């Protein structure tokens, strides 16, 4: 496929509206990430190093 046809396809969309919707989603998402990071200490297993070391699985498919 040529680069031209990529551009043609994208130009056919209502980009401003789409960008607006994405902006909303992204804001909610970013707020969620920030909020979770604010309280990550209460969620994350406290003995990280030991915990991760102990996560040993046997082979699977």
């Amino acid at each position, binding site marked *: 496929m040529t680069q031209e046809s990529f551009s043609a396809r994208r130009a056919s969309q209502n980009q401003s509206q789409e960008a607006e919707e994405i902006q909303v989603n992204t804001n909610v998402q970013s707020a969620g990430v920030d909020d*979770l990071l604010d309280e990550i200490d209460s969620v994350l297993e406290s003995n990280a190093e030991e915990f991760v070391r102990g996560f040993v699985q046997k082979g*699977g*498919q």
Partner: protein
Amino acid sequence: MSARRLVGLETEYGIIRPQMPNANATVLSAQIVDAYAQLVAEQNSSAMAARWDYADESPLQDVRGFSISREQAHPSQLTDVEPGLEESGIWTAESIALDGNDARVGSTLYQEKDSTEVVMNLVLGNGARLYVDHAHPEYSSPESLTPRAAVLWDQAGDEVMRRAAATAQRLGGGELLLYKNNTDNKSVSYGSHENYLLPREVEFSSIVKGLTPFFASRQIFCGSGRVGQGMLGQKAAFQISQRADFFEAEVGLETTINRPIINTRDEPHANWDKYRRLHVIIGDANLGQISTLLRVGTTNLVLSLIEANMAPDIELAEPVQALQQISHDPSLKTAVRLRDGRELTAIEIQWLYFEASQKYCAARGIDDPDTAEILQRWQNILDILERDPLEASDQIDWIAKYKLINGFADRHQLSLADPRVAMMDLQWADLRTEKGLYYRLAARGAMQTLFSQDEINQAVTNPPEDTRAYLRGMALQRYAPYVIAANWDALSFAVPGARQISRFHMAEPLGGTRKSVGDLFDAELQISEFIDELARRR
């Protein structure tokens, strides 16, 4: 064909018992399956009392490898069981041995014994299979017909596992933690397989050619993300896929060693002359509903392209290398080399498949809502990924994880080699909704979803209505005491007083639907009447 196709998703979950670091993983896995069997029994009021009797009386292990040649052996064995079966509410409600690998239910799971003896195998009332595969508990979803249904019954599997772990703990089995991931970052990987029904006449060579570039590149919207590169995770860097570094071959039969991008297992669990089951082992287990939807929906469309001989004519020069190069570059800028010398990014490869699919659907007038949704989402996600992958963080698992982990590392000035980063990578996939980082993010509205918890709970109980999973699941819901064996394409009943068991083959995966047999369940027939009527329908 279209974005609709018969699909089943299998997930092997990671499992640990934190208080018992060296616990036998197979035993832990059996504990999960056993706990779920007990939960089902509890929900069936008078069941518990009969449970252990049945376990003693019913040599479930004799059902293993259920095959026609063994059929004659069963009536006599079943006679021993019948007194129990005639009582109401036998505990086995939904726990029936599938072909092979059965365990004695209620056996002492903590006894030291050969791990191969401690294997359990259930069929659930939603048509799914729950069992121990190698050293992992596995949920194999019931056959579903749309990408959305595939997502719903896959999510139901996560809920089944969650309930099983909670039940195990309540019953004194200790705390079992389950993870929907695909590696322990210490050389081991375990799978989440997809199964797609194809017409037998599709040439396998065209499947290999058509799918390989697609599979190497689809991870950009359905990878689950991983901190660690290399099988040992030796390099502390983020990559898109959990599984990419564990693939070493282009085509092959293996699933546990020398894993191939295209798996050649040919075991249709259906009419052999008519169907092929494509067994896909390259995918990541997704917690996110959108990633799962895209993974299944786009693959369905690409298989349709292959069937119609309309797949893009591209071949990767080095498919395995390309798979890993793409996975190792979250910026999505890496271009991989084609046989004809061109170099394309994963996004560009995906555009080729999208354009071909769009063209194919337009030419054939395929405009059902599922296909329309997949095409629209596929196009939308490629547009976003091209602009800025981070904008897809509310839809795509690896991007959500990437953003969370990088946000954490930035805040605390940590490198990705920090143990807390590794902890986040692992805890992302923790199935506990109060601890799992995916769930903590989703609870904040930061992940797009398709289904509510209520809908997922319904799918834990009920089968899809438009495949043979309906007959399997409903038979277990209504006539469990009489179902003595079930697998993907057969269902066997033992009727009190009957001299032989009744075995029904379900070689047509699109048969046994609510439309074709729903009235039999609605009529609330006695078991013998039900079996007679079912036999008449065939």
